[in-house]
């Protein structure tokens, strides 16, 4: 048996395990859940677009879309039809292949993430034992699509927006991952299903208030929600990376943008708010309710806050969120070492105190330089 054979059989052994253990061990499972995932994402996108448009409008003392359907609920569908009928314009200097590919690259990952999100105990497409890792990995892919779009449009606004997005996502990946790591430590598993099950006693938001804040802020930055929406920055870059896109390709970006918002809300809801857990209502409804609560908070911040500057954005990630995330991870690890097994509930006030102290300390120490560069 040569070394090649050994390697081959080793690889085959891994291949055996490739379809991971389906929950329920039914072969049709993937088919059903593929449909469910896609449908769930698309429906949720329509819902959150409605929530966003009406929410922003209500915050801004307006009424928002209210003409299509009762209370304007069909506005997203009307927009979709309109956008489908629009002409697809490709700039003459565009890098055609990349230009065409970018919208798909942005949109596809948002659906893929839902493969590991549990809608109920075990009701998920694949209970990956590395679920959290999968989420982090896949959610970063759309950045590549954004950069492809910005680069290929041969538009300076697009390129600036795309560069900003790459910089922001790479920086904010750190605090996001570190704050998720705290949850993983608490749950003792990377599987999202196990993490949700571990929150049966209390949701992790009370065990990890700092982690929740960090994930929320970092998540907002990663999916380019205000106040970190620098890649679109409508008052500066007109529309950022998708300035040149029109028709269905623009719609894909639009869907992708809200898809990412749904994904981030889902991750936050799953990791910190107890996912599908909850009394009375059916589990999937609890999940949706929690997603909408998180999303509404995002709408609220978007309606309220001005936009930060790019250097402040980076400084905020590296000088404020990153150290806090590290300390948060350390504190969590120490707590788990100190109380093996289930953590006692009296550490909840302790955690809140630590959070407050850390935020105060971080705020005192945090400082960014002046934005001016000598030229």
């Amino acid at each position, binding site marked *: 048996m040569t070394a090649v054979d050994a390697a081959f059989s080793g690889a085959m052994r891994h291949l055996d395990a490739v379809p991971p253990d389906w929950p329920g061990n039914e072969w049709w499972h993937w088919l059903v859940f593929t449909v469910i995932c896609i449908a769930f994402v698309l429906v949720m996108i329509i819902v959150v677009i409605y929530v966003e448009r009406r929410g922003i409008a209500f915050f801004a003392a307006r009424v928002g879309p209210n003409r299509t359907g009762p209370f304007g609920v069909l506005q997203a569908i009307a927009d979709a039809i309109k956008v489908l009928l629009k002409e697809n314009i490709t700039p003459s200097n565009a890098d055609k292949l990349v230009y065409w590919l970018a919208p798909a690259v942005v949109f596809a990952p948002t659906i893929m993430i839902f493969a590991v999100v549990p809608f109920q105990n075990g009701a998920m497409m694949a209970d990956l034992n590395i679920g959290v890792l999968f989420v982090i990995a896949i959610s970063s892919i759309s950045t590549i699509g954004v950069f492809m779009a910005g680069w290929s449009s041969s538009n300076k606004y697009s390129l600036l927006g795309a560069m900003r997005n790459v910089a922001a996502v790479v920086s904010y990946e750190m605090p996001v991952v570190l704050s998720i790591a705290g949850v993983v430590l608490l749950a003792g598993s990377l599987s999202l299903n196990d993490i949700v099950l571990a929150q049966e006693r209390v949701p992790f938001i009370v065990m990890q208030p700092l982690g929740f804040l960090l994930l929320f802020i970092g998540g907002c930055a990663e999916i380019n929600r205000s106040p970190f929406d620098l890649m679109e920055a409508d008052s500066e870059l007109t529309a950022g990376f998708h300035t040149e896109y029109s028709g269905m390709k623009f719609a894909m970006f639009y869907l992708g943008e809200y898809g990412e918002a749904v994904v981030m809300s889902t991750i936050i809801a799953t990791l910190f708010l107890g996912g599908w857990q909850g009394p009375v209502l059916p589990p999937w409804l609890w999940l949706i309710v929690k997603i909408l609560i998180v999303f509404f908070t995002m709408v609220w911040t978007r309606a*309220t806050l001005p936009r930060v500057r790019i250097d402040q954005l980076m400084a905020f990630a590296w000088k404020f969120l990153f150290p806090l995330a590290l300390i948060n991870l350390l504190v969590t690890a120490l707590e788990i070492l100190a109380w093996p097994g289930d953590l006692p509930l009296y550490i909840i006030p302790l955690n809140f105190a630590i959070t407050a102290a850390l935020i105060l300390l971080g705020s005192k120490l945090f400082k960014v330089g002046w934005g001016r560069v000598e030229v």
Partner: protein
Amino acid sequence: MELRTEPFVLNIGPVHPSTHGVFRMRATLDGEVVLDLDPVFGYLHRGIEKLAEERTYGGVIPLTDRLDYVASMTNNLAYVLTVEKLAGISVPERAEYLRVIMSELQRIAAHLVSVGSFFNDCGAYFTPFLYMYRERENICDLFDMVCGQRLLYNYMRIGGVSQDIPDEFMPALKRIIPHIRGRIDEYDQYLKENEILLARTKGVGILPRDLAINIGASGPVLRGSGMKWDIRKADPYSIYDRFEFDIPTGIQGDCYDRYRVRIEEMRQSLRILEQAVAQIPAGEVRADVPHLIRPPVGEAYAHVEAPTGEVGFHVVSDGSIAPYRCHIRAPSLMNLTALRDMIIGWKIQDLIVIFGSFAITMGEVDR
């Protein structure tokens, strides 16, 4: 490995969400940093100075509406003051009060627009903008009641104002003053102390006091730089010497100071309004001036403190029914003189904020 980089040129405008109209800035950028800036004017040039030479003195007033179209009243006032100075016309007492009331209402309305769009430039997604517009609507209602339009008022006349206010005006104004004062306080809570806004505007776009004077800046831009200069105090026109008010000034002349000066000016305007409402006498609102007025040969310059700064008209008369020359001192244009100096070295995002803090109106810049 060293990467070869080169600066690139970005055209901001003339059609861009944050250029307050059709302004174009040709920015040379190194990544995000602005290396050079070349403002390009003229996309809204309508030749108002030339048009004014072919109209009667009264017919120029609608043209002045279209200069700074968010503050038509003060433009009207500046023009009619000039012609009155030229022709030596005195204005009835009640008309003077009405002019003050209208100018101060206009100042509040224009500052609300300026501040709202400044927040919008900072990236607060339309919410503060619409709040400000909501309060401005109250003032537009009053203007609508008085002169029948909400934007281009054409209210001032040579020798007074076009017509007296209706009976329901004063009660409405008395209700609106406290309302707006409360709302200004509320919106101060909204963004005055907001950390992100402070980070974006404090220390950004500093216009030093000496430079501000040297470039001929006026209005909130000059006062934001710490110069206590307000035409209403320095060279009181109309009846401004009868009212008690303060001149708010900034400290270092950054974007935040300019924004704060605007807010404080609104409060002072409300003070003036309260005094004017209490003092206004009854009587005529228009002096007996012929429709086709022929001022004597000569020239006159009169200026008012408009929301954007010192609006001045330099009218030369040759004794005919039309001005021989009507030059407009446009504060927005002058305030932009130092734009390049203030922006170089800052990021492109700051460019939008600094530009927004001037609150220019293109109708006035290009005329």
